[in-house]
């Protein structure tokens, strides 16, 4: 393969640690809001409240991370001067605004024990904004020229959604007594399994460029993600129902694994941008056919 002195064709993102961390907190927030409403409908008040607080906290941290990453943080509100469907980041900013506003309103009213109808409405809005919040970040990274992200566009929203569900279930397991945490446990274990299968599918379908998921920092993070989330899910499935300590351990391991998973995808993107062969070869192959 030929290139210009081995230089990259596309630029790697200028984003820093806040962005993959936000992929985790945003996903956690979105899926927690859904879990909270689900528990409310199932009349599991303890689980509902806990998931609500987790979601509100994650929703509150998320914008801080995003603003901190901006080159000009004081202009963060410029994101909201337009509504632009062609920009997943713009749509995401609006979804996060709605989700964060709703979940934090609901959590505050829950703490104060006031305005119950407003609280219920806010919970419903947060649960509606939750699924798009948990999945749009997959579109955000896929809608770029970064080879391994753009070519993974079919699976990435699914992978991010599964990761969000896993972290929401796992986080709730850490703060709710095992007797009432059954649904959260099943969500965490099921989502970890689904995510593993989806990642495998994507890597296989990506073919040659998928090798970045087995190389360098992305490769190491990928192993860590699988080991942590896998072990955590096993602990939750085997002992989560009986022992509170196991539930806390299992939940923490799954959350750590999901954070590593976001970093895996993030780093893989950088690696695929840095080496021009990943940009040039698939395009050449396309032209040949």
């Amino acid at each position, binding site marked *: 393969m030929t290139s210009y*002195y081995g230089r990259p064709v596309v*630029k790697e993102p200028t984003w820093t640690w806040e962005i993959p961390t936000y992929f985790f907190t945003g996903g956690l927030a979105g899926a927690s809001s859904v879990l909270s409403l689900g528990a409310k409908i199932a009349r599991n008040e303890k689980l509902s409240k806990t998931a609500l607080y987790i979601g509100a906290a994650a929703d509150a941290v998320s914008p801080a991370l995003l603003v901190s990453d901006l*080159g000009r943080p004081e202009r963060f509100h410029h994101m909201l001067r337009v509504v632009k469907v062609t920009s997943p980041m713009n749509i995401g900013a609006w979804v996060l605004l709605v989700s964060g506003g709703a979940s934090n309103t609901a959590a505050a009213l829950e703490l104060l024990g006031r305005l119950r109808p407003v609280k219920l409405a806010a919970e419903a809005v947060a649960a509606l904004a939750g699924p798009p919040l948990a999945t749009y970040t997959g579109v955000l990274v896929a*809608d*770029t020229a970064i080879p391994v992200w753009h070519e993974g566009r079919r699976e990435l929203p699914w992978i991010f959604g599964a990761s969000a*569900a896993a972290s929401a279930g796992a986080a709730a397991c850490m703060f709710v007594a095992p007797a009432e945490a*059954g649904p959260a446990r099943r969500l965490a274990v099921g*989502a970890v399994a689904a995510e593993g299968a989806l990642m495998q599918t994507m890597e296989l379908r990506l073919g040659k460029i998928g090798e970045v998921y087995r190389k360098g920092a992305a490769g190491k993070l990928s192993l860590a993600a699988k080991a942590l989330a896998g072990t955590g899910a096993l602990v939750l499935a085997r002992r989560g129902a009986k022992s509170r300590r196991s539930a806390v351990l299992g939940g923490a391991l799954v959350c750590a694994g999901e954070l590593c998973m976001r970093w895996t995808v993030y780093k893989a993107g950088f690696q695929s941008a840095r080496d*021009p062969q990943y940009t040039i070869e698939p395009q050449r192959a396309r032209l040949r056919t």
Partner: protein
Amino acid sequence: MTTVEQERVGFFTDTSICIGCKACEVACKEWNLVPQDGQTWTGQSYDNTGELNANSWRHVAFIEQEKPLRTNGDGGVGLRWLMESDVCKHCTHAACLDVCPTGSLFRTEYGTVVVQQDICNGCGYCVPACPFGVLDKRHLAPAPDLPAFAKEDGRVWKCTLCYDRLKGGHEPACAKACPTKSIQFGPLDELRQRADERLAKLEHEGWNGAQLYGRDPDDGVGGFGAFFLLLDEPEIYGFPPDPVVSTKHLPQMYRSMAAAAAAVVVGVAAAFVGGRS
């Protein structure tokens, strides 16, 4: 207020007559007050600029090859030195413009793509969106017009096709400075016609590898506003051989997201109905 619609303008960069003088790089820096960002000696022929970025809006590439200049035996020796002045392509379908969440990037009345510096908040989304790696964030000390607390400029910068000069009825600084007319500025239709004629002439004379890059309005980005005549494959010059605007697949991505979002809801519901504990 109404905007007067102008004819779409652009560049035709004919690399067959580029002499690698870098007058375009210098003129661009001078006119647009693009700051100095340090000097490095790359050891890559005469190219010490390296790439297009926030502080280099024209970049002259130098390629030393053992390939005959002509295919018909004329022009003799099997050694040639390719030079090419790269620039923002001002794509018909521009990914940077599509993904910009603030509306800072916009299409001008001339059909060019420009960053509004008073709007850009440095989110950096356009940087990995560009299939050519043109845009970049400026990490240098803040310009005088920025507030004192700004640690660095932090905004994204790229070629404006000298929007200000166009407004004043002048051609862009790089084209003005080019001593060989390798960089030609004008209405895009006219440039395409001129490029076709030039390519036919080079092919007739047997130039090795002569081809137009970005001239075709049916390519993955709808054709470039700034296109090129090259003497080898695009990747030799650091170009992507088949660039496609990422938002071409955005409807597919949103569909995938909608399905995944629904799956999250179904998954949570299943966790409540499934199993007993």
